[in-house]
């Protein structure tokens, strides 16, 4: 391991670059953030390994301030000459930059907790041979059904650090692993997909994931035609995560205060404290929670506290950075990059059983905002779409494009599963849920 990606190397790089800023201009403020990681991957498709990669490096971003003038620069070169040049170049850019009235002073020393679950030594041990064995296992699972299997395994282990000229120093180890796979039938009419990310290797159950992906592929073969229309839908974890995540991405106090958000009140103000979605919906962030452990500080270096963003359907709080919080006299908080949507009381079977005629959706693809201000989202279903009739899965159907409001989808929730699932984001856990009046706007021939 190069010395720059160790804890000592990260601290040393941060201190050296702050020293170069101080030496060049003692009046300058500075903050530095560092990600140092070993990251490697293996990709497979058509039942064989295709490409793979390995990188180990440190990435450092320096922000310097001269009064209200600010500039940032980043590099992956951390020898003295490069860091000195980075410091001088950043200061030069800041001197030439007009003033930014939204500039906030850098943070001083902070007190942080420790997140022991954010780093897993098992992930740090993975190598090309271990990845090849996982790929082989996933591919072999599909062979009895003559499936064409593709997938991707990537892992990262390293450190995140942050320091400022005012004395803040934050460092934390972190790791994650990500496994996804798509199994397609030989005739090209069936497809199944699984994707799980976690900060702990043991969470990724390769056997279970491969079995489910292959089973979905076979079950979705030769889909029947179902017309577009409004349906009750059951969203499997990767699909429900798409809607929960889209909702969370809209949480921003400034956009709401400025009147350009689904959470803006007509005539001014925000919709905080209003019941916007179904009471079955609670969304919270807690870096110390066992379900989705994260780092104990945010990108600015503020210590994170547990926050409930949506409590039984009520929008409790919109996040704001320090500038906007000060301007609006509100709480400065992190943005919810890590969060959990609370589980409910229904089993998966009960979610299906409650549907007279509807659709089970395994996954969405290419979701894009149609209109962010009204929270209208478009996208397509993919990798396993099934018709439900009278509480039972009848069989595979064609894929669809949907055009649907995210807020309305969470408002129309009828039942939520009693367990949380992994998603394709290591910092997010969601349950499945059932929602009604979901607009499947047109059909798609894609499999």
């Amino acid at each position: 391991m190069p010395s720059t990606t160790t804890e000592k190397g990260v601290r040393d790089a941060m201190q050296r670059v702050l020293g170069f800023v101080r030496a060049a201009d003692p009046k300058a403020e500075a903050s530095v953030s560092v990600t140092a990681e070993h990251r490697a991957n293996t990709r497979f498709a058509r039942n064989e390994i295709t490409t793979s990669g390995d990188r180990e490096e440190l990435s450092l971003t320096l922000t310097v301030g001269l009064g209200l003038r600010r500039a940032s620069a980043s590099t992956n070169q951390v020898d003295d000459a490069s860091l000195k040049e980075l410091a001088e170049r950043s200061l030069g850019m800041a001197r030439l930059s007009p003033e930014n009235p939204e500039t906030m002073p850098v943070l001083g020393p902070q007190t942080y907790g420790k997140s022991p679950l954010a780093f897993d030594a098992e992930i740090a041990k993975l190598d090309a041979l271990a990845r090849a064995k996982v790929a082989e296992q996933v591919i072999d699972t599909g062979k009895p059904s003559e499936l064409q299997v593709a997938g991707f395994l990537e892992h990262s282990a390293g450190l995140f650090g942050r320091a400022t000229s005012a004395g803040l120093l934050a460092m934390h180890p972190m790791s994650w692993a990500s496994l996804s796979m798509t199994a397609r039938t030989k005739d090209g009419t069936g497809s199944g997909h699984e994707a799980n990310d976690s900060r702990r290797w043991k969470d990724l159950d390769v056997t279970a994931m491969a079995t489910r992906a292959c089973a979905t592929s076979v079950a979705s073969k030769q889909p029947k035609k179902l017309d577009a229309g409004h349906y009750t839908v059951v969203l499997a974890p990767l699909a429900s995560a798409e809607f929960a995540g889209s909702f969370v991405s809209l949480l921003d106090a400034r956009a709401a205060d400025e009147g350009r958000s689904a959470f803006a009140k007509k005539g001014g103000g925000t919709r905080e404290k209003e019941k916007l979605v179904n009471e079955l919906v609670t969304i919270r962030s807690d870096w110390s929670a066992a379900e989705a452990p994260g780092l104990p500080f945010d990108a600015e270096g503020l210590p994170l506290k547990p926050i409930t963003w949506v409590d039984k359907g009520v929008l409790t709080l919109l996040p704001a950075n320090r500038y906007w919080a000060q301007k609006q006299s509100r709480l400065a908080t992190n943005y919810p990059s890590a969060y959990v949507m609370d589980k409910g009381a229904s089993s998966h079977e009960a979610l299906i059983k409650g549907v007279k005629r509807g659709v089970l959706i395994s996954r969405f693809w290419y979701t894009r905002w149609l209109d962010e201000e009204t929270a209208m989202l478009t996208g397509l279903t993919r990798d396993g779409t099934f018709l439900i009739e009278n509480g039972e899965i009848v069989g595979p159907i064609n894929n669809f494009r949907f055009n649907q409001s995210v807020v309305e989808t969470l408002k129309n929730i009828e039942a939520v599963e009693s367990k949380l699932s992994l998603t394709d984001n290591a910092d997010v856990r969601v349950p499945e849920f059932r929602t009604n009046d979901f607009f499947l706007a047109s059909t798609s021939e894609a499999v």
Partner: protein
Amino acid sequence: MILSRRSMLAASGAAIATAAGLAEARGLVTEPQFLKVIDAALSTAKRQGASYADVRIHRRRSQHVGVRDNHVSSVSENELYGVGVRVICQGAWGFASTSHVDPSEAGRAAVTACAMATANAAVLEHKVELAANPVHVAVWQTPLEQDPFKIPPADKAELLLAVSQKLRTVKGITFCNVGVSSNLEWKLFASSEGALIEQTITRLDPSYQATAIDKATGEVANREWDGAPAQAGWEYLEQAHFLEDAERVATDAIEKLKAGTLEPKKRDLILSPSNLYLTIHESVGHPTELDRALGMEANFAGTSFATLEKRNSLIYASPIVTVFADKTTPAALATCGYDDDGVKTQKWNLVEKGLFVGYQTTRDQAGWIGETASRGCSYAQDHASVPFQRMPNVSLAPGDKDIGVKDLIAGTEDGVYIVGNGSWSIDHQRYNFQFGGQMFYEVKKGKITRPLKDIAYQSNTPEFWRSCDAIGGAKSWELNGAFGDGKGEPGQVNAVSHGCAPARFRGVSIINTASKKGV
């Protein structure tokens, strides 16, 4: 010795070349250490049993200046520099990188890459075979007058603030964002076959958006400038009417607030080049990527409806449609001299007079479709990323007649004209798509009658392209492009341009995105 970015900068621009071929080609490579790094990587790979190896010393630099309303909101630079070593051992690929540009680290990366390839070889059904390729020793760089990295941030900010001022002068504009990103790629490629290629690529991405809000209704209208990013120097901003367009963009945002809506139904559709380029990208560019058609991207980006057996038989479009790939188009974002396999770039047809005829390929893919040479589509975004098949510039050939958008509108009884790109989404085999825009206009009896809002068109790729009945002439042909097209696992970005003239499509489903009604 580790080469820092600083010493590399000092080296750039000097006049000494270390390789005879490069010297002849006005080489910028002056640092003997680069050749030691290359030699360490290639000779180590050979000792480790590699049948092929290549090495890229790659520097990627980007700079962004942003303005929000009346003040500068960000000035930032980002730089990545390092070495990537790619090998074939026992018929399998391996790749490793390092940010330390020195011979010992390059040798270590070669050892890691070879160990990886050996591990991968155990899970292989086909050995990698590279199509033959002439060995090139050459230099290529973007033709430009003013290097955007030499323009001080304050000068950039002054221009952006002038645009912002012009936008905010229009009554009713509540917010605006203005920005310009510059991007530089410098790379030195060498292979075990003897290739040595140095390239410097400079790109510019200017953008802005004006927002108008109706306080009474809470309705918001955003209008983005529909100018294009380009492979060019700072001088491009003058040609692109960056400042001049601001008043029109702001006025459009106000107009959009008051615009009417339409009931969903099938209508004729006229698309400006600023909208159509993205439709070309998604519905022709991506489906004709050979790796998609082969299933290499099945786990992420998806596959393609344009499968191998359909080549030379699928009627992709109407007979007036020819779509070509071209990595040599001047000022286009994906243009370069050589791809990241060391293949000289070229131009070829993907769709010819409506017939699907071609794919985008790399050296390890050409043989899959019986071709003996690569089309030169290999690209890696930085030193730490593995090269794979990426989209070249893909463009719609202009029509034969000297007509423009006014003629297309004049020949339309009941339709919609769309300018700029908005929301876009397409399925994973590239059939079903839905695209929005920036400005929408109703067309009745050959005339624009009123502005519209909440419009998108929804179609199926072959159905859409077969409905194309008119394409503007060469005078109305222009380049637009995408700065950050994503693909692959781990994800990589690629900058790519698409040229086209305005075109008309008959009987396309036009939907109202604010209603929950289908066509």
